[in-house]
């Protein structure tokens, strides 16, 4: 019996509390098929076995809780350790660079890894914590992204309640396609700049 079989079977029996637990643990970083679980929960709501609002509230709260556990552990547990080690081996400037990079790109990274490329979410929690991304901004992007993620996938499951498998397959692949194309656009822009004639230098 696969983990998906087990989760779905238990969810139709234990409902929202189990969903809460699964989403929390998955948001910390345990690789559960959690997006699929949300779609299935939406379908169960349509079939009258669960209620829509508790699924959305519990799913969002669990995701936000899990993310903050990941962020907190790395900010107040992992970061001091890494700072101490880098001070010994002389890599402090790299930490400064990582912090600057995180402050510049962290917000969009956190937001898009909440609902689009969810596999990257736990990693972004850890890197945001280690780079000491400001907590207040982390909370804002996290809440926005997670509520969007839960509502999007639960509602897809609710609307296409008889096509759970297809919806999950299509959305899962589309998310990776979008990420790959975003990377291609960034790299393509760099290539374009390499070959653009240089502007005449102003003396």
């Amino acid at each position: 019996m696969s983990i998906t079989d087990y989760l779905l079977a238990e969810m139709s029996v234990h409902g929202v509390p189990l969903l809460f637990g699964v989403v929390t643990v998955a948001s910390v970083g345990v690789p559960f098929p959690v997006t699929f679980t949300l779609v299935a929960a939406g379908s169960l709501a349509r079939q009258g076995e669960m209620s829509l609002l508790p699924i959305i509230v519990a799913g969002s709260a669990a995701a936000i809780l899990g993310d903050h556990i990941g962020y907190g552990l790395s900010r107040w547990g992992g970061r001091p350790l890494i700072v101490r080690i880098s001070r010994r081996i002389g890599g402090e400037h790299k930490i400064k660079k990582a912090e600057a990079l995180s402050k510049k790109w962290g917000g969009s990274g956190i937001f898009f890894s909440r609902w689009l490329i969810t596999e990257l979410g736990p990693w972004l929690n850890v890197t945001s914590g280690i780079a000491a991304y400001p907590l207040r901004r982390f909370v804002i992007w996290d809440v926005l992204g997670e509520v969007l993620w839960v509502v999007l996938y639960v509602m897809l499951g609710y609307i296409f309640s008889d096509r759970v498998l297809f919806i999950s397959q299509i959305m899962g692949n589309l998310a990776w396609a979008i990420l790959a194309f975003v990377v291609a656009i960034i790299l393509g822009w760099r290539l374009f700049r390499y070959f653009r004639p240089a502007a005449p230098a102003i003396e």
Partner: protein
Amino acid sequence: MKKFGWRKSVVAAAFLLSLAIGIFFVVRAVRPAIYWHYHKDEPIESWMSVGYVAHSYHVPPHVLFLALGLPHKPPDKRPLSEIARAQNRSMDEIRTILLDAIVHARPPYPPPPPPPPDPRSSP
């Protein structure tokens, strides 16, 4: 023409690779969409419950429960993999039984009879 150094070669290769990965995933996303368009029905998988299969194939659940020799009330929520194990059947056998019941519950066959009375409500 500028010199095409190793750094630019790496960027160009990464660009082509990310483009290829993007196209690969678009193809993978389009495949189930095409299947969906032509077949309407999802393939029956081990994680599905009998209730979900009935919902997905738009047939009354009791027809499928009866085909598997299970009481329709209270509805059995176990996934098909567990039912298969409990009945000592393979997933293929379960799938064949369900598909056969589904075919006979849809036109041109007459609509299935209403569910038998709930055994719990009888004296």
